[in-house]
């Protein structure tokens, strides 16, 4: 059971649902399909390398993928969250993340074979801050929004749960989390196995909300 790659299944499912439901979505939501396409491609390659081709390591794939993961995440949230000066905040976050990436890359002697934990953690924390900015706007906005039918709420909640839980374990147990194993599966991987389906379930809910909103606006 532990060896079934649930995250990959969740990602493929989310990608397929996005193709079905995001046909006429507005331009920012529309880009989610392409992002998910890149995600499933990356994960499939990484899985193939380890499970089929039996390569010694697939960390370099994830090192490349986090460049897109956080770049896209920050861009998406900066465009969807209605808050003053959010674009400047996003610019600063780009500097912090990509700056740390370059720093770690130099620190790893220009090699991407081992996973850039520090950059990943910094990226996660920046995403958490952006999610909290969104929740802050909800507190301060005088208008009432039906949250459980709001696409942005589900999209950001998925991100928030995913990054908060994974960064919690990562930050305190960086080395231990990746090396400690249960039945030859690292605990970090187990945590992600649980969190990934949660993230993509929230995103599937996002797509359903977008479709419902479009139907209502057309009526």
């Amino acid at each position, binding site marked *: 059971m532990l060896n079934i790659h649930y995250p990959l299944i969740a990602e493929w499912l989310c990608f397929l649902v996005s193709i079905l439901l995001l046909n006429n979505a507005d331009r920012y939501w529309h880009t989610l399909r392409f992002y998910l396409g890149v995600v499933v491609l990356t994960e499939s390659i990484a899985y193939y390398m380890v499970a089929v081709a039996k390569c010694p390591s697939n960390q370099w794939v994830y090192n490349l993928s986090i460049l897109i993961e956080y770049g896209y995440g920050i861009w998406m949230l900066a465009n969807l969250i209605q808050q003053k000066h959010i674009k400047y905040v996003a610019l600063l976050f780009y500097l912090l993340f990509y700056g740390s990436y370059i720093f770690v890359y130099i620190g790893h002697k220009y090699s991407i074979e081992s996973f850039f934990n520090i950059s990943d953690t910094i990226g996660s924390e920046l995403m958490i801050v952006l999610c909290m900015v969104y929740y802050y706007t909800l507190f301060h906005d005088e208008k009432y929004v039906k*949250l459980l039918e709001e696409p942005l709420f589900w999209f950001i909640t998925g991100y928030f749960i995913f990054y*908060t839980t994974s960064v*919690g374990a990562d930050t305190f147990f960086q080395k231990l989390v990746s090396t400690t194993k249960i039945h030859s599966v690292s605990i970090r991987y187990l945590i992600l196995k649980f969190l990934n389906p949660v993230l993509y379930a929230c995103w599937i809910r996002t797509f359903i909300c977008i479709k419902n909103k479009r139907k209502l606006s057309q009526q």
Partner: protein
Amino acid sequence: MYKEQEEIIAAVIITSIIFLTIALGLIILVVVYNNRKKRHIEEKQLMQLTFESELIKTQLEIREQTMQTIGADLHDNIGQLLSLTSLTLNSVKLEDAEKAQQKIDAALDLTMRSIKEMRLLGKLLQGEQLIGLGLSEAIRHEINWIEKSGQYVVIYDIEGEQPAQNNPNKDLILFRILQEVFNNIIKHSKAKEISIKLAYSEEGVRLQVIDNGAGFDVTHLPDDQKGMGLLNIQKRAEIVGGRFFIQSQPGEGTCIDIFIPYP
């Protein structure tokens, strides 16, 4: 070694659960707060609807009161005057020139009085529209009407300057309150003197009406006088964020004091 590993795994799982709980807690807080916001908006809308309906009711009552007064005056006063004029003219005998002249003069006098009454009625109708031009003017017209009967001496005092921008809704409500107070004075008090003070200040406007009538025990109203009048006045004052005070003792007249924030 194995035990150490187990402890590490447990620690990682517990930490993850803690962070997951914190994240879920924040999300639940946001959802609960959002639902409260919805209830608050609904309550605000209900209050607005209640206020608007009370305003419409006030406008209708003012109109009804005006129509009733006009109807009563047309019947009791102008109708009588015109009937008398008709009788007088009918009884004129042209053969007796002197008597005929007296009767024609009397008929003329009755006609002039009818015209004067009609003019006052016209002003009463205008009084309702004068609320738009200023509460003090509308009150002055209402007082003219009360004084016309000759039964009351009304002293009207305005203090302070009327704000540059008036609030027609609050003016309407205050005007209706004044009409209710006048109704009560006419029906129950047997007063001869009425003192009205309209005082404007930075905080709001104060309307005080004092009469030297029979007064009553505020806490124990007789059954035949337990109308909705006082309750209505209080409700209307409160609906616009105002306060209402009443002081009265049997045999010592009544003082009604209303303060509302203005504009």
